[in-house]
Every structure is written in C-alpha cells, then in structure tokens.
C-alpha cells in the first residue's frame, strides 16, 4: 500500500506542477489576481505531496519491503537503520526523488515567504519552477520510478554499495542537492524577469539571499564530499578532477560569480543583463551536473548506479531548459535597460574582474570535462583528461583572482583609488613577504613554488583583515571606538572578510598537503615499526571481527612521537558478503590541523599486511577554508539589509497587492 500511495502522491504532484506552470502565467497576462495566486497554493500543495512520496520511500526502506525493486536492489535487512534511511538517496531513483523534493521545498519557500514580492513576479517565478518540476516528475515516473514492485518478492535484498554505507552519504548528497537545486530559484527569477521584460535593483535584493543560500549549501556539500572521498577511498586524495567532482565545481564557480555580480546589480543597478545570464548559466551547469552524474556518459572514480537510456531523457530536459532560457535571453535581454556607469578601477570593476576570472576558470573546467566526450563522439578516440590539465589551466587563472581579491573590498564604488588601496595593503604585503621568506628558509632546497603560494594565501587572509581594520579604524582610533565600530559594521562586511579569508586558508592547506605530504607504503608484520615524518607506528597485531553486515579485519597501530606514546590507531578492511566487495576504513589521527592517515591493503599468508601511511601537514585547512567561506555566507545572509527594507520596485504593484 505504501508504495502505491507514494507513487500516487508523485502523480498528483506532477498534476499540480502542470497547473502551477500554466495558470499563473495566464493570470499574469490577464492581470487576474486569483489566477496568479494559484501559484502559491499549488507550490505549497506540491511540496506536501512530494513530501508524502518521499516519506513513503523512506518507510519502505526502513521496513525492508523487498517487494519493491528499489528496496530490493539497494537494501538489506541487516543493514543499520541509518544506512537504511540514507540508502534511499544512495541510488538513482531515490536520489532523483530527493532532487525533486528539494526543488519543491525551494518552490514552497518562495511561495510561503515571498509575500513581499510583486504578485506577477511571484506568479512567473513559481510558474518557471513548475516547468522544471514537471519535467523532472515526468522523468522519474517514466524512466526511474522508485515504487515499482517485483512480481515474486525475494526474501533478502542485495544491499547497498559498501562504499556508500557511511555517514557521508547522510550529509553529502542532500547538501549538494540543496546547492544545485537552490540555484533553480535564481534561474526562475531570471526567466521571470525576461518574461516580464522588467528588472531593477529590488530584483537583485530578492535574488541575492536565495543565491547565497544555495551557494552556502553547495560550498559545504563539495567540501563534505571531498572529505568523504579522502577518508573513504583509502588513497588519501581529496580531489581527483573527476567528471563527477567537476560537475559540482562548475555550478559553484558560476554561482560564486553570480553572487558577486548580484552585489553590483543591487548596489549600483549595473551589470543587469550579465547577472541574468549568469543566473541562467549557473542553473544550466547544475542541470548539466545532474546529467553527467546520472546518465553514465562519463566514467568516474565514484560509484554510481547509472543507466545510459535515462541519459537521453535528461539530455532532452537539458536542451529544453538551457536552449529555451538562452533563446529567451537572446530575444528579451535587449529590452532590459542599461544601468549605472563606473570606471574600470572601482569596486564594480574589481567585481567584473572577479566574474571574468571565475567564469573563465569555469570554462576551462567545462572544456576539460566535456572534451573527452566530444572527441569520443567525433573520432572514437578515448582519452582521459586528468589532474595535470586542470592544474595547468585552473591554477594560473586563480592566481590573479586571488591577488585581486584583497584589493576589491578596499576600492570605492564608481571610481576607486588603486594606489590608495595598495598603500593600505602594505601591511598585508609585508606579511606575505615574511611568510614567503619563512616558508622558503624552513623548507630550504625544496619547492620554490610552494612558499610563493603560501605567501599569496597569507596576502589574501591579511588583506581580508586589513579591510576589517580599515573599516573599524583599528590602530588609528582608540580601541574602544574600534570595537564599537566593529559592532556597527554590516554583517555582510564581516561575511566578505570571512569568506575571502576562507579561500586563503584553503589554499594553505592545499599547498602544504600536496608539497610536504610524506608517505610510507609497504608490508608490515606484527611488531614491526614504520617511520613517517618523525612518527613511529608499530603494528601491534591484526584481529578479525564480525560487523552487522560485514566481516572486518582490524589492524592496531601504536603511534609514538620521540618515544612517547601518543595514541592507538585502528584502520580496518571490511568485507561485505552480500555484494562480495570490500571497503577500506582508514584510521585518522588529528594533530592540530595535520593528520596521520593509515589505510590497509591486502594481507599476505605470513601474517604481514600491506599498509599505506601518510602524514599530511595542515590537511584539515583544506576543509576549514570552505567552512569559513560558508560561515561568511551565513553572516551575510543574516545581514538585516537582506531581510528588511527591500525597496519596492519603481512601478509598484500596490493595487494588485491590496486586492489580495
């Protein structure tokens, strides 16, 4: 019954989304308030029915109902409860259901909290959301229905891919989807603006918080995914430039650009047409990401259940939305009025530079990800574009971006003073030079490139602090005055500083991990000792253990530093009998921001075991950086300017709202 109820609720949600996608537009054309208000109720009702459908699938998984194909293929009765729940989106059908559930959630949020939007804009936005939702409901119902029954129900399920049986699956996909799908809101706003042929600074005020929310989740989602890959895959790598990772990085780069251009639009009423284009591109890249991951056209190191036949359907959705919105853009963008003027050297100019580099970097990732696919289609040659390509293209583009990052916030709107900004950044520059000198002296004879990169990172962090110091008049005014001014600063200013510093922090982590990583790879017998970066790791012994749905080989290591016992580490290797596959559970020992990392290979007959031991200096900064960025985003989001006082658009629709 539950499966049928879930299926039925999904069909009802499709019907509601079809109403939502047509009736409000007609209402907006005819100026009919009642028809326009249909958007709000259908969006909320749609959210309700998708929630019912999703809950039904969760209940089926928790109850191990193996008469449902999706549960049979991805669950097992002995699987722990947490993984029974997270297993819902650990497969294609379930993850698509999560995708539409989040889409409906965002639509519902606009409907519930968009009361201060002009009625026709809200109607248009929700109608566009309705189109996207309808396309994906059709996709799920026609090609990937999670509620299909099996005629002869088996007794036991096939279990979830062991790599996915991890807490990471509980957090990473929902976060990532909140980011991906969150950009649908700015897309809908952009398309609505094109349909209405009207856009103003108030529009940017509404779009910015939604973009910011999506960006925060995407940032955390990517960082979380990277950390998950780091400890789960057992190679100690945290970014592989894999197509699936690039698929999430591209919307992030475009979304970051969008976030910055929306600022220009809100504050200076400039870059309107560009902001609209970025909104469209960002969500298009999110859709492309969904297509790449779900269609199986690209090979990936990450495990996904994929089916190429579904790819055609998503490709059609992709062509319709990207092609349609870009056509609409080409047709209507010229009707939008040009905005304010500014000199090339100004805050606006700096933000344009930011956009230029971010979108170019995004384009190089796009080329690197899709070129192999295009070449295979055209010539039949199979190639792989790996990390060297991206390091050679992405790296050089990020260097000028990060240099400019400290200058941007110090420049005035309209016309900036570059020399003045440079003078104020003297302290940051000196800090960077000192960092380069120290790093160079400390690692004498090593890489010359790494100290320079660390200097750049320090410059970014110090630059972010300089901005705060300048605004609070720290060191110039008495301390108490500075504190008072610090409290009075807009939260968005603090947010900018934290987010920018986060980029620098992440860069330090990346440089240290890649340059000064030390490793030991070899076989160890019990009581043998491996030495890595001054640490002594003694293998005490290997034991076997039975887990809920796997057998586990656990090795115990005693870690010593200068003869003093620090800790015990227990990496393990799990063998999942149902799928006949095994996973490596790495053991991590955190020392400050650095980590010791042990993962096991296979054991030999003589009782020896193959091990990989890494010492990764400051590796945690790689993920603290994005966390700082997301924290900065949240500070900006809490800025009261984004919550209240959004000015009414020039041609107010007061008459319409009064009738509500």
């Amino acid at each position, binding site marked *: 019954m539950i499966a049928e109820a879930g299926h039925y609720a999904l069909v009802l949600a499709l019907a509601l989304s079809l109403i939502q996608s047509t009736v409000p537009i007609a209402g907006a054309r005819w100026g009919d308030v009642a028809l326009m208000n249909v958007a709000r109720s259908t969006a909320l009702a749609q959210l309700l029915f998708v929630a019912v459908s999703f809950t039904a699938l969760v209940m089926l998984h928790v109850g191990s109902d193996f008469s449902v194909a999706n549960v*049979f293929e991805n669950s097992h009765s002995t699987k722990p409860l947490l993984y029974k729940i997270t297993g819902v989106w650990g497969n294609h059908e379930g993850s698509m259901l999560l995708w539409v559930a989040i889409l409906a959630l965002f639509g519902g949020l606009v409907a519930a909290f968009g009361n201060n939007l002009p009625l026709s804009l809200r109607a248009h936005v929700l109608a566009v959301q309705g189109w996207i939702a309808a396309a994906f409901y059709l996709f799920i119902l026609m090609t990937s229905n999670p509620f299909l029954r099996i005629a002869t129900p088996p007794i*036991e*399920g*096939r279990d979830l*891919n062991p790599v996915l049986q991890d807490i990471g699956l509980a957090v990473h996909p929902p976060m990532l989807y909140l980011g991906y799908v969150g950009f649908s809101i700015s897309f809908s706003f952009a398309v609505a603006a094109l349909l209405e042929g009207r856009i103003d600074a108030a529009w940017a005020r509404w779009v910015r918080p939604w973009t910011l929310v999506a960006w925060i989740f995407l940032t955390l989602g990517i960082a979380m995914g990277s950390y998950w890959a780091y400890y789960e895959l*057992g190679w100690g790598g945290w970014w592989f430039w894999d197509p699936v990772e690039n698929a999430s990085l591209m919307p992030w780069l475009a979304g970051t650009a969008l976030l910055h251009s929306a600022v220009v639009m809100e504050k200076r009423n400039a870059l309107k047409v560009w902001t609209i284009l970025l909104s469209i591109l960002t969500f298009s890249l999110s859709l492309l990401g969904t297509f790449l991951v779900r269609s*199986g056209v690209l*090979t*990936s*190191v*990450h*495990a*996904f*259940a*994929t089916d190429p036949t579904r790819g055609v359907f998503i490709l059609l959705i992709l062509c319709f939305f990207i092609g349609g919105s870009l056509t609409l853009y080409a047709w209507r963008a010229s009707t939008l009025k040009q905005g304010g*003027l*500014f*000199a*090339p050297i100004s805050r606006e100019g700096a933000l*344009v*530079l930011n956009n*230029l*580099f971010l979108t*170019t*970097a995004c*384009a*190089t990732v796009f*080329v*690197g990800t899709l*070129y192999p696919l295009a070449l295979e289609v055209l010539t039949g*040659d*199979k*190639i*792989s*574009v*790996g990390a*060297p*390509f*991206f390091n*050679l*293209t992405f790296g*050089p*583009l990020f260097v000028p971006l990060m240099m400019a990052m400290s200058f941007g916030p110090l420049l005035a709107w309209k016309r900036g003073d570059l020399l003045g900004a440079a003078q104020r950044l003297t302290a940051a520059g000196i800090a960077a030079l000192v960092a380069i000198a120290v790093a160079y002296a400390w690692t004498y004879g090593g890489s010359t490139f790494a100290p320079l990169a660390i200097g750049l990172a320090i410059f970014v962090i110090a630059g972010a602090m300089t901005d705060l110091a300048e605004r609070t008049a720290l060191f110039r005014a008495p301390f108490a005055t500075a504190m008072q001014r610090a409290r009075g600063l807009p939260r968005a200013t603090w947010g900018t500083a934290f987010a920018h510093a986060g980029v620098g922090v992440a860069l330090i982590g990346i440089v240290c991990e890649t340059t000064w990583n030390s490793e030991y*790879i*070899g*076989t160890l017998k019990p009581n043998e000792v491996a030495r890595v970066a001054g640490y002594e790791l003694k293998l005490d012994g290997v034991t076997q253990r039975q887990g809920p749905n796997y057998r586990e080989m656990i090795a115990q290591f005693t870690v010593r530093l200068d003869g003093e016992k620090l800790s015990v580490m227990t990496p393990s*290797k799990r063998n999942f*009998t*149902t*799928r*006949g*596959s*095994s*996973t*490596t559970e790495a053991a991590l020992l955190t020392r400050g921001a650095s980590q010791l990392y042990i993962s096991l*290979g*296979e054991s*030999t007959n003589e009782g020896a075991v*193959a091990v*990989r031991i890494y010492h990764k200096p400051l590796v945690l900064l790689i993920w603290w950086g994005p966390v700082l960025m997301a924290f900065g985003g949240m500070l900006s989001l809490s800025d009261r300017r984004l919550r209240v006082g959004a000015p009414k658009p020039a041609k107010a629709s007061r008459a319409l709202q009064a009738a509500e």
Partner: protein
Amino acid sequence: MTRKQRRLTMIGGSLAVLAVAAALVLNAMRDSIVFFSTPSMAAEKQIPAGKRFRLGGLVQPGSLVRGDNLAVNFSVADGAAKLPVAYKGILPDLFREGQGVIAEGAIDATGVFRADTVLAKHDETYMPKDVADALKKQGHWKDDYGAKPSASAAPTQGAPK
C-alpha cells in the same frame, strides 16, 4: 573616459583573459592528455616506449604474481592480445583476476607496461565502462558481464574465454 572607451577597456580586458585561458588550455591539452588502449589496440598502433597511455582490459586469470615489497606483476588481456604489467603498490579493493582493470603508465624498453596507477573502480557490473565498450567493439563481450550479479551468490564472473 567616455562610456565607449570604458566599454572598450572592459571588452579588451575580457578578450585578453580569454586568450590567456585558451592558450593555457591548448598548452595543457598537448602535454597532459592520456589515450586509452586495449592490449590489441596497443599492439596495432605500436605505441612507442615511454609514451603514457591508459591500458584497459581483463586481468588474465592465473597471471597475478606478487613479489617483494608490494611489487605486483599481472597480464592484461582482451581476448586477442595480452600485455604484461608491472606495478608497485597496493592494488585497489576491487582488483580481481578475470575482471576489468585500467592501468595508467607506459611501456618500457623490455615491452613490459610499467603502471603507476591501477584503477579498479567499477560500476555495479564490476566492469569499467571504457573496457566494456572496447571489448564489445572487438566482439569479446559476453552478456553475463552486463548481467547484474544475482542476489544470492557473490559476483564471481569468469574469464572471457
């Protein structure tokens, strides 16, 4: 500056950045792209020693020899030809004889493929997509590779022959 001059500055700047990016991409494309070959494709094309490529195929059953200090030797076969592979390090969890594998490296002077990376991240059917496509093209594809592993038994597919 007039509006026109400002716009020209912007457009000029954008074009400069795009040109630099295009140069970077083309340069990186020349140096860091790796082709995929099966053993018979490698023999046919006579890939010179030292040229990096990705070798894909099935691990020849019975060919796996473990040496000292994590040295591993095995053969990669695609039904028509096979190529000996030498690797030093820990093999991935899913590496098995008779199943698909991708190794990245180059052929040395003695004709042995020296791999520095071995990938065995498979999809559910325990077969990398590139390998499956190549085997299908050469007609060495048996349908049971495509079949999903059954519920009761652990997936123990045999060799292609």
